[in-house]
């Protein structure tokens, strides 16, 4: 697991450095995600024990990190609640736009996806 954590930190670090160097709008961790995905896909056919061990390590580490993903959003969410006064008199209108807009977007997108019948391959 520790090797997995190390690799995840390392890819984030590389992602952050690339983001800063190239002044990209994409956040560093997302660049790290893409690089790690690329590395995994490129070495996919490799049967070397070293690569298999790393992959197992990464799996364990990612399962631990992702098990309670929503928890990680609590601190920043509290920040939003504490700064709601920022919106002043527009608060209710903005909340209405967000609520209606989000619910409709979820529904619309799900229906579009379901309509495209390529979705037959789904395994769930």
């Amino acid at each position, binding site marked *: 697991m520790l090797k997995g954590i190390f690799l*995840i930190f390392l890819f984030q670090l590389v992602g952050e450095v690339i983001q800063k160097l190239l002044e990209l709008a994409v*956040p560093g961790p997302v660049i790290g995600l893409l690089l790690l995905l690329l590395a995994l896909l490129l070495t996919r056919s490799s049967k070397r024990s070293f690569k298999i061990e790393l992959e197992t390590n990464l799996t364990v580490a990612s399962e631990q990190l992702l098990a309670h993903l929503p928890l990680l959003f609590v601190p920043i*969410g*509290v920040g939003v609640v504490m700064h709601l006064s920022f919106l002043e008199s527009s608060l209710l209108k903005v909340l209405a736009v967000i609520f209606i807009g989000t619910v409709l*977007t*979820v529904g619309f997108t799900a229906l579009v996806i379901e309509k*495209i019948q390529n979705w037959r391959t789904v395994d769930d």
Partner: protein
Amino acid sequence: MTDEQKLYSIWVYLQAEPLFWLTLTVGAYLAGDFCYKQTRLFPLFNPVALGIIIVSAVLLIFNVQYERYFDGAKFIHFLLGPATVSLAIPIYKKWELIVANAKAIVTGAILGSLFAVLITYALALGLSLDREIIISLLPRSVTAPIAMGIAELTGGIPSLTAIITIITGIIGAAFGTFTLDLLRVKSMSARGFSIGLASHGIGTARAMSRNDTAGVFAAVAMGLSGIVASLIIPLIIGILQI
């Protein structure tokens, strides 16, 4: 020292320690999780929304500055970065499924992002919000760092966009599942994808905590919608002369 003074000095000590705020954050989240599992009825009763409400209530009641709380809770916040990177592993494991659904994914990302921006514009215009607020609202379904970048580029207020984006995430996580149940959407990939597209990381977190396939498709949607939105929002603002 009187008992009251002693109590006060303990409180002063605890306030300055990360441990207290970390315990509160995890405890509030677990309490939210418990309520969610007990009821499963009211959408706002989900772990992340309830956790936020409980912590905020404690801070407001005891008059604690957010900065003081965050100084402790930042250790949890820090894990967001590594967690984002580690999404690569489940995506990698479902790679065949993603490639097989490439057409639906790309179409869904484009149409869904377009819909998200246009419906937001229409609603904001209908409620006659100020132009600056409207522009700040447009990128709200994209992950916060990207949304803030778009807002800055297009003449919005980035910090306002950050707040709006997080609220969008919480609402998507809280009411997304409810909406999908109402529409009888069964496919886990369609469910995850739509929640990830409409409510980025917080929605993805929610999808991931319920179903692997849904979580992976939410993550893919979040990534693609970030790219699509950065391309179309400046265009839409130009075409509609917002």
